[in-house]
């Protein structure tokens, strides 16, 4: 059993695994972005929405944080597929039309991470010094300008440590998308394990690649944090 030949020789598996790792990063990043958009909307609803809006946002975060992510992925994949199939049958196509796995995956990660991100942004907003908002209003800033100049930059800065946590979570959860057939790192290692009958080698290799992704991005977030807090005095 020559590991060098297995991974790096002609037709070796290193290429597929690395492509899988890149796809993992891509899925997680797009998922995080979708989650950010929805999460900001949710946080906004909880901070300054009316009662019905606040209750809805509250219910959303409770449900999505209390239900296993695998269930959310199944819901989106099978629900979306049966919807697509019936639409397809209506225009004359026959049989089962599956949801595209990348789109399903990023939406699932977005929906789940939005619930976590909403709490992060809400906490960051509440950490804003109240006086600054009053000062901005006293200067005659309109809400949009205030959001852009005062709120957004500071909320982002305060949210960075929490966002780093959510990012790690999203990277690890992206492995679940392998169940609907997207060839990200997890699925790539499954393919290798299946066709070489060396599951331990492949899953261990994928484990190491996940460690590289999480630790490198962890350091990047730490670096971003230290940069964004430079103008501030820290206790």
């Amino acid at each position: 059993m020559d590991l060098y030949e297995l991974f790096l020789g002609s037709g070796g598996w290193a290429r597929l695994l690395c492509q899988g790792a890149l796809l993992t990063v891509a899925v997680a990043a797009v998922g995080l972005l979708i989650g950010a958009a929805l999460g900001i909307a949710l946080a906004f609803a909880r901070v300054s929405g009316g009662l019905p809006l606040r209750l809805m946002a509250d219910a959303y975060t409770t449900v999505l944080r209390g239900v296993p992510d695998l269930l959310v992925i199944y819901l989106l994949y099978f629900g979306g597929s049966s919807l697509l199939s019936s639409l397809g049958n209506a225009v004359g196509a026959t049989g089962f039309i599956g949801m595209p796995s990348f789109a399903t995956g990023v939406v699932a990660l977005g929906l789940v991470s939005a619930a976590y991100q909403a709490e992060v942004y809400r906490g960051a907003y509440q950490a804003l010094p109240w006086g600054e908002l009053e000062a901005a209003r006293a200067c005659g800033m309109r809400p949009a300008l205030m959001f852009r100049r005062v709120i957004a930059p500071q909320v982002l800065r305060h949210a960075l440590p929490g966002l780093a946590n959510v990012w790690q979570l999203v990277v690890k959860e992206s492995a679940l998308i392998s169940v609907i057939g997207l060839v990200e790192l997890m699925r790539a290692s499954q393919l290798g394990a299946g066709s070489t009958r060396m599951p331990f080698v492949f899953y261990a290799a994928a484990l190491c690649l996940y460690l590289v992704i999480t630790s490198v991005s962890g350091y990047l977030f730490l670096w971003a944090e230290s940069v964004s807090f430079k103008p501030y005095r820290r206790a």
Partner: protein
Amino acid sequence: MDFAFLSETFTALLAGLPLTLNLALTSTVIGLIGAMALALSRQSGVALLAYTAKAYVFVFRGTPLLIQIFLIYYGLGQFRPTLQEWGLWGVLRSSYWCAIIALAMNTAAYGSEIIRGGIAAVPHGAIEAAQACGMGPVLRLRRIVFPLALRIALPAYGNELILMVKATSLASVITLMEITGLASKLISQTYRSVEVFACAGLIYLVLNFLLTRMVHALEWKLSTERRRTA
């Protein structure tokens, strides 16, 4: 709304509840013992122990649970002859035990960090006072450090318990028919994903709600002196 189908689905999914609870409870108990061992190793002052524990936590917190489960269930199969020789194959062949092992090893890593935080937050004065009373290290740990650390760590540990309940859903990927396993089977049979999702989600939500209430009750029970002053 098809109430007959909903109630049928609900009863079908409830059949998976015992396995979900079994997985969560067994692996949490084993994982808690592992977490304490890891936390004590980190604090032991023996460099080898501390670094091993640190590396363990780094690996298990930095990788997806799914790959840990696959590594144990499918990966160790590569060494089947050796494992048979050692008499471990009987355990590692069963998907139930592999799920338990993976979940327990995973929660041990997260739990050890929580316990370490709790131990680090024990006031130094309390430890000094115990030393001054002539308590030995083991007695000090048992009477002073652990009870205080437990109380400090409990809220964070409650979060970990909820994560564990959700994590048991991954056992369905290695053929265990707990709630999520039954749900995915029902969805692929009936294609009524919204209804099945609603039923399964409701069971998990109720489970997690009861769990948070129980942790709150325990917190309340353990905070006797704060209640007296309040």
